[in-house]
């Protein structure tokens, strides 16, 4: 394996940074509810991207998968105290982060929705529905077949539909 010069890598990753950092940090903030912590997560995702640049074919899905993994670890570390019907953003409301719209005011947070699912469905749902990655991209990031991801999403959709119906 050859390693490309880090300066070239930095130049290339900086283009990715300019294109995707802002959205990724905002996306993470919505999940964590803490902008500083979210910035740390986004920073860490880019530090890892610099490290793994030679092995990353498609940086955007890779970044979201990495950030999602960090977020998942954060949630796990914080415990599962808010797995269902938690208010917006894990109960930690940062006024600087976008406030929930009226139609979401009494609805589930993304975290609560995701954590109400069995473990195998969580990352596919987070990456496909919330990060807007294609099934193929999700499958590649998770090392699963597209069929397996579709099955996870199908099952998750059914469960979440019931959950959403229950909170209306």
């Amino acid at each position, binding site marked *: 394996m*050859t*390693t490309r*010069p880090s*300066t*070239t890598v*930095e*130049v290339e990753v*900086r283009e990715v*940074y300019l294109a995707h950092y*802002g*959205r990724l*940090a*905002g*996306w993470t*903030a*919505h999940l964590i509810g803490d*902008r500083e912590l979210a910035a*740390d*997560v*986004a*920073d*860490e995702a*880019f*530090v890892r991207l*610099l*490290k*793994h640049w030679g*092995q*990353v*074919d498609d940086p955007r*899905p*890779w970044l979201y*998968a990495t950030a999602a*993994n*960090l977020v*998942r*670890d*954060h949630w796990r*570390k914080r415990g599962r105290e808010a797995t269902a019907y938690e208010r917006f953003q894990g109960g930690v409301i940062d006024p600087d*982060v*976008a*406030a929930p*719209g009226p*139609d*979401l005011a009494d*609805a*589930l947070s*993304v975290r609560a*929705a995701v954590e109400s699912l069995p473990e*195998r469905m969580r*990352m596919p749902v987070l990456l496909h*529905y*919330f990060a807007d990655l294609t099934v193929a991209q999700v499958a590649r*990031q*998770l*090392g699963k077949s597209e069929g397996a991801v579709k099955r996870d999403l199908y099952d998750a*959709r059914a469960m979440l*539909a019931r959950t*959403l*119906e229950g909170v209306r």
Partner: protein
Amino acid sequence: MNATDHDPVAAFFAAHRDQVRDEQADDLTWQRIVRASRRETWARRWTTGLGLGVAAAAAAVAGYAAWPDLMGGEIRDQAGPATSGGTVLPTNEESTAVPTNVDGTTEPSATDELTTAAVLPPGVTITAGDAPDAVPQGMMLSSLGEATDGELYAYGLAPEGCGPDGQGSQQAEGCQLLVWSQDDGASWTPQAELNALPADQVRFEGDTGWAWSSDAAAGGLLARSDDRGQTWTVVGHPGNHVLALELQSGQLTAVTGECDAATGGCGDVQVVQDAVDATSLGAGTPLQPAPGGVSAATVSHAGTVPFVQLQSMTGERTTYRLQDGVEDLAPADLCDNVQAFAGAADPDAATSAEPVVLVCGPVGTGQDVTLSVHASRAGGRVWEPTGQVQIPNLDGGPLLATNDGERLVMATGGQLRVSDDRGRTWRFPSVPPRQPADINPYTRLIAAGNGVLFLMGAQTEADQGGFWRSTDHGDSWERVQVAPDS
């Protein structure tokens, strides 16, 4: 009609996506990411380069949880997420497990990622490796200076082209190189490959050089060389970290502290003054502790008189004169927030003046803020307000330098301003180093005497592999390219 109309789950997540507010992707954040990445790369190479075995790596496990930035805080004090090379583990895996990629390779274990540096004991000698014949393309500078008249040195990380023929074993990882110019920067020759020296800062006066790491997590190394960087001897010093060090007229002035690698805050800050060829640094003079600890320090000189500026964790700067004891230069009634300080590198010997300049403020909170300038010809013992300067409202204070105390240069972010009248009026240089609106920040501004100044940027595209030089007190600037353009 779109897909979400019939899919309440898709609609739910789409509504949340719409609530996401983009954060800023600014240059400071990028620099922070790059520094963290380089530090990780450097620390990884360093532990490998020193031949530290499993025992040393295991010993550093204890420090892993407390290592700063990359792993600090709520999220970072665990083994790390299961991501690698585009592969994320299935979610039922615990993050402490060693993940396996689809290609069968494994993510480095925690010990592979260790970055807490071992401490090299005083007296250990480090010999330079074989340097390449030519300065490699894309070398990123972290230090530069003038060793003697017309002799310049630079130090930094070369990403490739290392080894004696540019094809050495370090090619993939890059190398830390000391390069030298005998012709005032016109041409440069690699002097020493210093991968075994965990340092990113060097200073030379003549043949004698000192090296240390600006990163508190890198083990607090301080080393001296008497042969232009071919061999280095580790030197003991107070505290566990060198915050700043400068050489001037055969004298060394260093600021040391007991620093917390996790927070970057330093206590027990001392200033040590000794001869340039000192073999060890004993206890120094304690400096007044800053609230929350000291985050950074600089040493500058007005002629041969050293001055130290400390920055606290909360951003306040305190400036001390080091002559006949330690004297606080900027009482609160003069300057409630010191932004920058500079001593004249090359004062007029005939007048025995010790010109120094102090910039205070800012006033205002908008896009631009106003700083007040105070000048002294008596080494800061008597001050007079000389003018004001309006600069962009940026994080961090400006860089300030002067050779004679009359003509000043100030770098703010990526802009330069000059004054010809001790700070009364300010203007842009006649020939600026680059576009005035460039957002890449300048990181170092050095007054080298005789009207010469050096200016270094953050080694992004605009500044990589070289620096800027002025020979007319900052009015016009020329590029000095150390490494060939990438």
